[in-house]
């Protein structure tokens, strides 16, 4: 490996973006190695698109440094950055047929007509648009338009692919299929991809590296399972995972090794580490980590069920409490609304957060 290969393909160093007085991106540091699939995820309005658009050059950064392939691009216009973007709206050229849409960039580069036609056929075969090359975008379905937008990006062989919520206009089943197709395409081409989504499941299933953002700040970044298992704060813990983690105020008992949950009946659960007695914490319990059993059995704390939803593959139990607890049991479950069941959670699966700052305690 040469020295340039070890440099990140994309690198944000202390990047800030202001829209007038609005601070849209705050001290962004992000390094993306060549070939990686990175997902930017966060609630709507957190600055994901802004980050992607600064990378594309469609927005200028206010301060900091942005490098692409080792080159500082702060002042390089989009057309010289050699990036391809798939827009949420697809942004297909309405007056051009699919072939011309696909080969627009090649035409600008002065590639010969024969070569363009060959490339268009090749890409059309890859993305499954063989018979549609002569159609106008308005004659295509949503899914087909999405594919054209993808094809227009891969025909370029760019330094990186940028995706801004590319699947959000598709129906659920197509979305799941395209998720896999996009990832497979990424692996086959060996490209670098930055993928913006508000859907954490999309991010978790597609990406090598997930970046969780909130209000212009990167809260945490890492491998999908790292974010799930070791969230650094309450926001990430609540954002990653579905259904979302339960948060319950609690107090450390006299032994320092159990906590009393601030729920009806003050149930006590064991924790993996020792804390000073009397410490106020927020306990984070993932719905899928809670075991349901006999309320009288040893180690089980009683809890009253207010509602039950069965999807077949899983059963969702809702507690009659404030805050309400959600518990997911795999497969079916016999509990009914009004029943009292026992619940248990392994000590090393209990997350603890500082009630004021939301930062994860321990570790």
């Amino acid at each position, binding site marked *: 490996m040469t020295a340039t290969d070890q440099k990140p393909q994309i690198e944000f160093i202390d990047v800030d973006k202001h829209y007038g007085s609005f601070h849209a991106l705050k001290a962004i540091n992000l390094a993306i190695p060549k070939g990686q699939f990175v997902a930017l995820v966060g609630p709507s309005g957190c600055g994901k698109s802004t980050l992607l658009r600064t990378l594309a*050059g469609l927005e200028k950064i206010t301060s900091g440094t942005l490098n692409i392939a080792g080159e500082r691009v702060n002042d390089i216009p989009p*057309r010289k950055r050699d990036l391809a973007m798939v827009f949420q709206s697809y942004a297909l050229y309405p007056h051009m047929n699919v072939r011309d849409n696909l080969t627009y960039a090649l035409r600008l580069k002065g590639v010969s007509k024969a070569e363009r036609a060959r490339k268009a056929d090749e890409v059309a075969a890859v993305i499954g648009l063989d018979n549609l090359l002569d159609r106008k975008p308005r004659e295509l379905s949503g899914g087909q338009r999405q594919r054209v937008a993808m094809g*227009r990006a891969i025909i370029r062989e760019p330094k990186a692919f940028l995706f801004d919520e590319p699947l959000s206009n598709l129906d659920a089943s197509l979305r799941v299929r395209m998720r896999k197709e996009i990832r497979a395409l990424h692996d086959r081409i060996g490209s670098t991809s930055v993928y913006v989504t508000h859907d954490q499941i999309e991010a978790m299933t597609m990406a090598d590296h997930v970046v969780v953002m909130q209000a212009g700040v990167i809260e945490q970044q890492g491998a999908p399972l790292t974010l799930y298992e070791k969230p650094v704060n309450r926001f990430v813990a609540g954002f990653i995972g579905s259904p979302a983690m339960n948060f319950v105020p609690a107090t450390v008992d006299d032994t320092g090794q159990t906590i009393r949950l601030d729920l009806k009946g003050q149930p006590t659960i064991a924790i993996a580490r020792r804390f000073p007695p009397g410490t106020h914490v927020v306990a984070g319990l993932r719905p899928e980590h809670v075991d349901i059993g006999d309320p009288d059995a040893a180690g089980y704390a009683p809890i009253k069920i207010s509602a039950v939803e069965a999807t077949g593959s899983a059963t969702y139990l809702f507690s009659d409490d404030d805050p309400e607890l959600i518990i997911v049991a795999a497969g079916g479950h016999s509990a009914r609304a009004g029943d009292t069941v026992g619940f248990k959670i392994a000590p090393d699966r209990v997350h603890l957060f500082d009630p004021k700052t939301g930062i994860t305690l321990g570790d």
Partner: protein
Amino acid sequence: MGRLARSLRDGIGFDTLLVFFTLAYLLAFAGLPLLYNIVLSFQSVDMFALGSLFHEVTGLENYRAVFEDPLARTVLWNTILFTLGSVLFQFTLGFALALFFNQAFPGSTWFRGLFLAGWVMPGLVVGVLWNWLLSGDFGVINWLLLNTGIIDDPIFWRSDTDYSLLAVMLANIWYGVPFNMILLSVGLAAIPEDLYEAAELDGATAVQRFFTITLPMMRSTIGAVIALGIIFTLQQFDLFAAITSGGPAGSSMVAQYWSWELSFRQFDFGRGAVIAVMMIVVVLGVAAIYVRSTRQETRL
């Protein structure tokens, strides 16, 4: 409630009624006069015969007279020159301004609005304004041209046969630019911003984006604006009346003004009608282009 009344309120009856009134209106105030105009063009009508509905039919006599008129060639040439020149410059200036104001700089919408002030002025007022601007002795335009050294002697725009048509054309271009600008602005605003962004990422320069995105996306708007521009220019009467009255010596005479002059100055309504008929044919052709281009919307 009766079935008819219900249908009138929320059924197809109401639609039919609206269409009927529109058609009746068009027929009474546009269709019939148009037909009567065609009839007039084949008849001999002078001031004394004007009172009666039917006149002596003279066949193609009026047409022959118009074509053999020594002024006919000048009028034809002037009309073509005036129309094409006006439309060409109204369009290019309007498009340039529309592109400029589309940049959305501070105050751009406000400035664009100001341009409309020129458009809402009555043609006669515009004509009077331009009479001042073009005045040979103390006009601003001569002053500018003299001071920049472009000309050495003042041009007597309105009374010089070489310049009289140009004088009206200048005024008409100024008068038509805001209309072109506004319609083209609307067309520009309808092009989604993300198309430009996609093109930019695909490597297009600003000039390439203009020719590969803006122009093709504006095709129908441009067709409509040019068609309307031709029609409005062929209707332009006030400026001629205010600035040159078609003179001197017919040097700025165009078809629409000649038609009026024949009918209402020389009281030869037959020959006036002949010119009107020929203009109708031209306008119908242009209108067909207009309808076609508004139908061919290339939007997603």
